[in-house]
């Protein structure tokens, strides 16, 4: 189906179902319950982040997962895409079509230039070069380029902006031919409340399309060449392949994904600043991909979702909530547990992320996807011992188009 084998098609269907049903799946608890306040994640602002960062990680994975070239400056493309989109809002109108097109095109051009320079080196030097470029972009956006980026204030739409395509009666928020990004339908069922927001669904559809394209790239001859470059560049050139254009193409495609993600961020909220390009943002993308599973199809999406979920959930927890959880225990035990856990929640959520990251990298070098496969292998061995071969073959399969 859709040019995919049954395995990939199933994966795509799961992703489509999960993203489209996310407003329901992520709100498993009634809205007013204690659990709901702590663990529900089905509100639009957070779900938008899931899919936008998912898209970003999927694109990053095309570069890092397939070719092994670790870009440490991917946030630069995200930032450039955001700026391009806001400029389209300022110059033309709030319609997101020209904005999205602009963010892809500008990010692609930017990636051609940066890629051309950085790909002269490989390994750690490539990473450092990309990092340097991203930090330069960040610094420029704050200083010299202030007329374009509006410096520290951040770029936003003002009432006196030209907006030449805007006619009276058009929405004054980002919209797709009148379909406003921030309007939503709320569905109350008993104590549960589900919010279906236009903006989320637009971002989700972009993510699904991006994910589908990435599957096609992974299974294509182009994807095979990229994996061959990762495996042995020497053999690649002695086989008559010019590795440079392959690498540059992968870099630009990856940058375009980040451009779309940046454009979507602006479409959700037409305000952007240079901090989107800061190196910690680039680092976050790397962590997402590695946590989920580099080189696997679903890993980066999974990593992005988990990090954004934990960021929101854990940083909301404070000592009162912890005391509530352990209220049934004797006081001394309650206090002890709260004292132990407190540094890991609220503002300290990065500590939890750090521990999780270390555990994953040490015990599951293949990321959470590998963890899932190990679990799967364990269960299928219990149910049918003859099947275990097929599952271990599946470990290699996530990045092998042979099946």
């Amino acid at each position, binding site marked *: 189906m859709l*040019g995919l084998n049954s395995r990939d098609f199933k994966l795509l269907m799961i992703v489509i179902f999960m993203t489209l049903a996310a407003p329901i799946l992520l709100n498993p608890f009634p809205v007013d319950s204690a659990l709901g306040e702590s663990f529900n994640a089905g509100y639009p602002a957070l779900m938008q982040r899931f899919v936008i960062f998912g898209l970003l990680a999927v694109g990053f994975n095309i570069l890092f997962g397939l070719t092994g070239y670790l870009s440490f400056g991917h946030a630069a493309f995200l930032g450039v895409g955001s700026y391009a989109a806001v400029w389209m809002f300022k110059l033309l109108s709030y319609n997101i079509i020209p904005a999205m097109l602009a963010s892809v095109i500008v990010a692609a051009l930017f990636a051609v230039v940066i890629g051309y320079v950085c790909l002269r080196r490989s390994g750690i030097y490539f990473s450092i070069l990309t990092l340097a470029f991203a930090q330069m972009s960040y610094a420029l956006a704050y200083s010299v380029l202030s007329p374009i980026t509006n410096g520290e204030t951040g770029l936003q739409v003002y009432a006196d902006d030209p907006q030449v395509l805007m006619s009276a009666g058009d929405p004054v928020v980002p919209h797709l031919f009148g379909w406003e990004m921030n309007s939503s339908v709320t569905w109350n069922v008993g104590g549960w409340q589900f919010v279906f927001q236009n903006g989320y669904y637009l971002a989700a559809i972009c993510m699904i399309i991006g994910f589908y394209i990435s599957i096609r790239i992974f*299974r294509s*001859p182009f994807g095979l060449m990229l994996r061959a470059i990762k495996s*042995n560049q020497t053999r690649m050139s002695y086989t008559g392949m010019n590795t440079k254009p392959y690498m540059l193409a992968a870099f630009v495609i990856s940058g375009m994904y980040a451009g779309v993600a940046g454009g979507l961020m602006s479409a959700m909220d037409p305000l952007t600043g240079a901090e989107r390009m800061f190196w910690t943002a680039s680092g976050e993308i790397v962590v997402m991909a590695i946590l989920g599973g580099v080189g696997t199809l679903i890993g980066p999406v999974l990593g992005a979702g988990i990090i954004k979920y934990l960021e929101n959930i854990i940083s909301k927890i404070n000592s009162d909530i912890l005391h509530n959880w352990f209220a049934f225990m004797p006081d001394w035990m309650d206090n002890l547990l709260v004292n132990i856990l407190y540094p890991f929640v609220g503002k300290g959520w990065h500590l939890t992320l750090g521990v999780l990251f270390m555990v994953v990298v040490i015990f599951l070098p293949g990321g959470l996807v590998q963890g899932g496969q190990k679990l799967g292998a364990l269960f299928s061995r219990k149910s049918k011992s003859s099947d275990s071969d097929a599952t271990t073959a599946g470990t290699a399969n996530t990045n092998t188009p042979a099946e």
Partner: protein
Amino acid sequence: MGILEVKGVNKRFGGLQALGDVNLSVAENTVHAIIGPNGAGKSTLLNVLVGKLIPDSGSVMFDGQSVLGRKPHEINQMGISRVFQTPEIFADLSVMENVMIPCFARRDGAFRMHAIGSVRNEGDIIAQAEAILADVNMLAKRDMLASALSRGDKRRLEMAMCLVQEPKLLLLDEPTAGMARADTNNTIDLLKEIKEKRDITMCIIEHDMHVVFSLAERITVLAQGTPLVEETPENIKGHPKVREAYLGEAQV
């Protein structure tokens, strides 16, 4: 006029004259061996032929065209394939994928953006790859990861990857280095079989005299960067100059 003509090639590394006025002519459809003691410049010469090194002076003509100044992938596209001393294969890919890549290189050239169609639908590439794997008796291992192969099989796989491109000239850099006698004999048989089946010129750099005398039709002896003699195997064995420079230290 041979398919490969090396004329007056010099290469100097600092104070060391690695290649001094090397002339070499490899005739089409022959097996030509280059032998010589350690440090004779064999590997330097090979690296010049594949574009990894650029000589200080001289000319290297292949099939009527100069190879000097071309990149390794361009030289490969001209029809020169190289087998390395330690097999250079795509260790993280399956055996089948390893041989499919040279098939793509041959069909699509050095670069082609082919990002949407699936590899599974490339019928002709798959057929070619399967045919060459059958040729080297590795079809049963097609789905194995290349890194899991035995050393001998890695060598076979690399050979298959080179052969599937149907090169005009196959360069072999010590193809039996570090092999047990049995594996060495297998490799000799494999090379003989290849030679029988197709029109191919081979240029072998080798230490092992057993391999050289089993395969070569012409032999060039290098010593200290300069060719001493070029002769048939029968004449090489008794050649006084060769004995002095080389065979004196190895019993034949």
